[in-house]
């Protein structure tokens, strides 16, 4: 078996002043025909740089300093730019994470795929049209003829990714580089796209270089695996060996951080007392107002009733558009619900007037998804945490004392309180966000995808911290997530949402072990790598 694409001792230098001298150091990989090589690593590991180096699409100031990139024995690094252009798209194709930004929003899909043929071949217009349609059929777009004329925004995320794959496969390249192609997609869509890639690969014998951070996806699709850390490959080998018998400590740590779906923590006693009772909550978007005409009416929440037990964690799981984030935002009254009640103790949050609401807000606090957007970049982090109590009338000195204490509690150095948010890593920022929410000593914590933007090892730390705080402070948590693995680890009770409704709820063991609703079953069946149980290390 010969390698289609081979990287030999590839080093990529970063500009002086970066946090490390090399983006990649002595990376050697080999990609076989008809096989998928998964490059796994956390953010900053250099996995996307690897793809960039192969395609010669490196950012400004970054350049290859040593090594070879061999495509069927030819070193791509020595080729002049015109020759390289002939290879891109024709012999090595690439698909990206976010198909919306990778496609030109102003041109129809069919036209964009046809452009690949126009650039690289001498086919007639009719032949191009035939080939384009055939491609869209091959990636199983629901209505290929209509998709030809559709603009990118008229397709769903999964459909756009299918169109991207069609474009990438247009010239039957021997090699396909996929850079996090399913990260932006819902889990059921992700399952379909992974299936499609595997299927096309089997039929065409394409070699696939698949870049991902998700070990579930790796377990689903990889034949071979290379684990990267800090710009070097720390371990590589066949999928089975790496997944089930990892040797390198970093690989072991990464795999240990993957929340196992098969080992659900033992159930904790659920208090009969309710911390938060949501009854018949509904919210519609796009309703006409006095000044604006009606848009497309979306029923984001449709008669949702769930109960958060005191001291427990209620998980709300569902895909994008299921209404789970709307629920979180209604509960903390960032949105005003149309109907229903949100009972916190004896207070109905949904019925409070703005003035009363401001004082009651301290009882229910939120941790946000994006650790980069959720902290005001112009305030020092100590102040960010102390702000809440000060708003609620606590004296400045006392608020800062409380902030100092909380910094310790969430595992940060209180000495760092004078720094700005951009000086912290994503995980540390999420701890700051958590400290800010806890500073008001809330009864209920709402975590909206609070760990979704984090690397898996950091995610594991934050989940441990949340579980620890729950024990120590007796917090009741409403935990919103799209990630069933995460939900299984931390939640006591789970409600599955679909199109604004709760379709199923129950204990974790019940929902995951014996799902009743067909949507829950579909969701569970789509979890990547569900058949793989991370070895107990």
């Amino acid at each position, binding site marked *: 078996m010969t390698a289609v694409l081979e990287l030999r001792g590839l080093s990529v230098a970063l500009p002086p002043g970066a946090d490390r001298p090399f983006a990649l150091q002595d990376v050697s990989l080999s990609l076989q025909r008809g096989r998928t090589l998964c490059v796994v690593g956390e953010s900053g590991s250099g996995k996307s740089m690897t793809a960039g180096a192969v395609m010669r699409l490196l950012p400004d100031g970054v350049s290859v300093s040593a090594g070879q990139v061999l495509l069927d024995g030819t070193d791509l690094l020595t080729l002049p730019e015109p020759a390289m252009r002939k290879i891109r798209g024709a012999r090595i194709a690439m698909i990206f994470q976010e198909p919306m930004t990778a496609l030109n929003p102003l041109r129809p899909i069919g036209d964009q795929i046809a452009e690949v043929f126009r650039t690289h071949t001498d086919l007639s217009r009719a032949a191009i049209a035939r080939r384009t349609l055939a491609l869209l059929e091959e990636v199983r777009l629901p209505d290929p003829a209509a998709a030809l004329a559709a603009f990118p925004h008229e397709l769903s995320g999964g459909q756009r990714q299918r169109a991207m794959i069609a474009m990438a496969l247009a010239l039957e390249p021997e090699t396909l580089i996929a850079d996090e192609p399913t990260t932006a997609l819902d889990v059921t869509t992700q399952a379909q796209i992974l299936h499609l890639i595997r299927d096309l690969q089997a039929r065409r014998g394409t070699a696939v270089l698949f870049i991902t951070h998700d070990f579930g996806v790796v377990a689903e699709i990889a034949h071979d695996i290379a684990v990267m850390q800090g710009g070097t490959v720390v371990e590589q080998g066949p999928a089975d060996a790496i997944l089930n018998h990892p040797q390198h400590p970093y690989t072991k740590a990464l795999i240990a951080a993957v929340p196992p779906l098969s080992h659900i923590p033992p159930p904790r006693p659920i208090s009969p007392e309710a911390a938060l009772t949501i009854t018949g909550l509904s919210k519609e978007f796009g309703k006409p*107002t006095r000044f604006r005409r009606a848009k497309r009416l979306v029923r984001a929440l449709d008669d949702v009733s769930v109960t958060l037990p005191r001291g427990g964690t209620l998980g709300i799981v569902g895909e994008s558009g299921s209404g789970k984030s709307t629920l979180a935002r209604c509960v903390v009254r*960032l949105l005003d619900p149309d109907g229903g009640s949100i009972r916190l103790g004896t207070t109905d949050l949904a019925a409070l007037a703005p003035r009363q609401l401001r004082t009651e807000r301290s009882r229910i606090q*939120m941790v946000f998804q994006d650790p980069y957007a959720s902290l005001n970049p*112009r305030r020092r982090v100590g102040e960010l945490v102390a702000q*809440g109590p000060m708003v609620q009338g606590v004296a400045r000195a006392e608020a800062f004392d409380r902030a100092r204490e909380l910094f310790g509690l969430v595992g940060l150095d209180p000495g760092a309180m004078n720094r700005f948010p951009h000086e912290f890593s994503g995980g540390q920022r999420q701890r700051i966000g958590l400290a800010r929410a806890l500073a008001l000593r809330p009864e209920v914590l709402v975590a909206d995808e609070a760990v979704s933007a984090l690397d898996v090892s950091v995610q594991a730390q934050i989940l441990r911290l949340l579980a620890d705080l729950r024990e120590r402070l007796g917090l009741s948590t409403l935990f919103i997530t799209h990630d069933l693995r995460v939900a299984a680890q931390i939640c006591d009770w789970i409600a599955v949402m679909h199109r604004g409704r709760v379709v199923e709820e129950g204990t974790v063991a019940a929902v995951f072990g014996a799902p009743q609703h067909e949507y829950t079953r579909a969701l569970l069946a789509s979890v990547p790598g569900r058949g793989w149980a991370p070895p107990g290390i």
Partner: protein
Amino acid sequence: MSLLKRFGRSPPAVIGLLLMLVVLAAALLASTLYPDDPLRLAGRPLQWPGANPRFPFGTDPSGRDIAAQILHGARVSLLIGSVATVVSLGVGILIGAFAGYFGGWVDDVLMRITEAFQTLPAFLLLLVLVAVFGSDIATVTLAIGLVSWPATARLTRAEFLTLREREFVQACRTLGMGHGQIVFREILPNALPPIIVYAGVVMASSILLESALAFLNLSDPNIASWGNMIGAGKGVLRSQWYVSAIPGVAILITVLAVSLVGQGLNDALNPRLRGRS
């Protein structure tokens, strides 16, 4: 690291600051060097610069000392520029911030008003205001501020539109902050950099607007403004061009200084750019 040090690291900002200091010094020294009324007749009209050591910049068609007028004019220009900018930014930020933050009908109403102002050419509106309310210096300054806020309002609104969706703003709401506090203490500092840079543009254009008014003899004739001086030189533009050119250069230097300082301040104030050179 101090703000000054960061500011000092950018050569254009330092040049701007030096020019600004020159203009400020001119304004401050005006009364000391030329204690008499700059508009009084000082000597024979239209003496070329350097021809008479008493008048380093020469005299204008009425025999007034150009150097004295330039120094006194620096005061007027800086005063008009800064007051008009404050008025323009105040109105613009207030309207833009509320429109962007609240959205909905508030945005609709405020933006229609802004558009009404924008559809009228600023200078025409200024002419109307001056024609109706008279042309003493206070009215002129206020009028300039009132015609130049729409762009600031639009800029502020655009910044607020993107910032209000950011999670940190939602976090502030969940902490129980009031709208005023969120708008002015949380969002505004993040929206300021482009506005600060734009303030330089507003200040520069205010000085230019006043000059244009003065050129048309519509500004306050009882003060020594650079615009009045250019206007006074228009009759002799082809022979004694220095009469218009000297105040022209003064305006150029001031406008350049204001722009460079504005840009330098922005770079220095932005914590995300710290550590980069």
